[in-house]
């Protein structure tokens, strides 16, 4: 359920980045104050473990297809929320760079969707709340499954909302939710039981890893509902601020939705002197200032005109011709650089 750059608008992507970056800095600060030095290699190696663990697949009961774990909640239980959030962010960063899972703009959203919920909702408010007093195997299983499932539901919900707010997909909100939530409920239950199994099995072999990484517990126990709510509120303000900043600085990306709401995309043109001047220059340099070939089949244009937004056929044909030409130029450019490289290598 990784978000992809192509599904995000700059405003939403930027806002999610602001939120995730803020949380990374906050977690790093928390860790710097209280961390045991031992944690540094442990965090790095456990991040690598998540990758290695994802290679080992299992048969999903009842379906015959195979899956692997995500591991967000497992990290939160092993490392505590702050360290786990940093590890999840790093795992996603490596995935974004090497596997292009999502992309760089979507990385902010992915860290939010897969990191915030297990670390700051699932672990402190569900898992710890249930397991705190009595840590019998049954209770641990229950707490793990519940927190994993809720974390994934919230993550999937965020994916839906982010995609909707970016205005890329045509899917109605209800259908989109119906597509995403039940799938992730199933995924959440399987992941929950797998995580619980791992926690319990590791506990029989090395109880200290699960129950008693001292530095972690002291950091972890400081999380209260009030604190989480306040932090989330502040983060919401920051993201909101980032959102409006983006909205005012990059009107192009929001033009579409603003056009839908106000029906006047022209407002922004006046706000930006640079693009205004460029537009003038553009009109001078363009061969046909209004961008459209005199269309031969004017009658057809009228037929298609009512469907919105009416694009003149002249424009679309020059778009196709120009598009192919530009693509050709790009390819020529690529081969040119390759040829230059070869010549230089020979010299």
């Amino acid at each position: 359920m990784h978000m992809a750059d192509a599904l995000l608008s700059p405003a939403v992507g930027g806002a999610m980045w602001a939120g995730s970056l803020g949380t990374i800095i906050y977690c790093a600060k928390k860790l710097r104050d209280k961390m045991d030095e031992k944690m540094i290699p442990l965090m790095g190696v456990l991040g690598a473990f998540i990758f290695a663990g994802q290679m080992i697949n299992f048969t999903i009961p009842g379906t015959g297809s195979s899956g692997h774990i995500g591991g967000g909640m497992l990290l939160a239980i092993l490392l505590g929320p702050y360290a786990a959030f940093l590890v999840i962010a790093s795992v996603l960063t490596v995935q974004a760079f090497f596997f292009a899972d999502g992309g760089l703009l979507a990385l902010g959203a992915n860290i939010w969707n897969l990191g915030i919920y297990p670390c700051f909702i699932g672990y402190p408010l569900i898992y710890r709340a249930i397991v705190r007093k009595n840590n019998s195997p049954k209770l641990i299983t229950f707490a793990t499954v519940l927190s994993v499932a809720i974390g994934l539901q919230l993550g999937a919900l965020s994916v839906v909302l982010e995609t909707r707010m970016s205005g890329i997909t045509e899917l109605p909100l209800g259908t989109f939710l119906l597509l995403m939530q039940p799938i992730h409920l199933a995924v959440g239950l399987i992941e929950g039981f797998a995580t619980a199994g791992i926690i319990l099995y590791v506990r029989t072999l090395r109880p200290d890893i699960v129950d008693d990484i001292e530095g972690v517990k002291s950091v972890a126990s400081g999380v209260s509902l009030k604190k989480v709510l306040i932090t989330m509120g502040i983060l919401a303000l920051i993201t909101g601020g980032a959102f409006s900043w983006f909205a005012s600085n990059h009107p192009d990306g929001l033009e579409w939705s603003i056009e839908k709401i106000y029906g006047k995309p022209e407002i922004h043109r006046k706000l930006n002197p640079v693009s205004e001047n460029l537009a003038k220059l553009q009109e001078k340099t363009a061969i046909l200032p209004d961008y459209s070939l005199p269309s031969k089949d004017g009658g057809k244009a009228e037929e298609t005109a009512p469907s919105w937004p009416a694009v003149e056929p002249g424009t679309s044909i020059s778009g196709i011709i120009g598009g192919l030409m530009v693509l050709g130029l790009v390819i020529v450019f690529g081969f040119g650089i390759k040829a230059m490289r070869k010549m230089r290598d020979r010299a």
Partner: protein
Amino acid sequence: MSFDLEFFNIGYLDTLSYKDTFVHRIDPRIKIIVSFIFILFVVSFQKYEVSALMPFFLYPVFLLTAGNIPLKAIAKKIVFVSPFAVFIGIFNPLLDTGVILSPFGIPVSGGWLSFISIIMKFVLTVSTALLLIAVTSFPGICEALERLKLPKVFVIQLLFLYRYLFVLLEESLRMIRARDARSFGKRGKEMKTFIRLISVLLIRSVERAERIFCAMLSRGFRGEIKVLRRHTINAYDILFLIISVTMFYLFRSFHIVNIIGETVGRSFR
């Protein structure tokens, strides 16, 4: 299994990143910033835009050719990660059926246009991310992140993660081979076996981390790791930044594709 192997074949991108070309030598900070601006420009187009995206292929093609990266390696990875974008995008042609343009008399619905637009944006952004790592190297990225003032703990454990990634991947590949050698068909992949395998891998990882920590202590670790700084920003880097951002801006505000299309169309008339 072949999917997983392809998916996890990250060592290859790593080897590519140690080449020495013009783009490899650009300061990682500049490359990250330019790529990020590039992605912002690409996704800022409205959802029906197709032709105006074409000029933007210049940037990934530049990284690919100037960085001497094989196209096949990148293309393969793009195809492997495409399912989610395709899954979300494929509903557009089904739901948005209003015909918004009909070149040469062929009606094209808004849904198909926005679908093609999503796929093009996807290819542009994903290939840029992959090429960025292929021409920068991961330690280079980490150096840049640290110098761009990201928290040090985060950067350090990112470096740790990367270093031990290869070790642990080999470890888990050995475990998988052992499991496959001892089981037939679909057996051996039950939840119970899986949980035990993962648990053992987890314990081994934790124990490895403990040994690493001891080794670090014996080499004088005091809770601080110095990140190697190998790059400095020079005039070429600044030039690269200015030229690329100016070009993105021009591509964004001028509809170059239409201008070329009109010129060509007129000369045929």
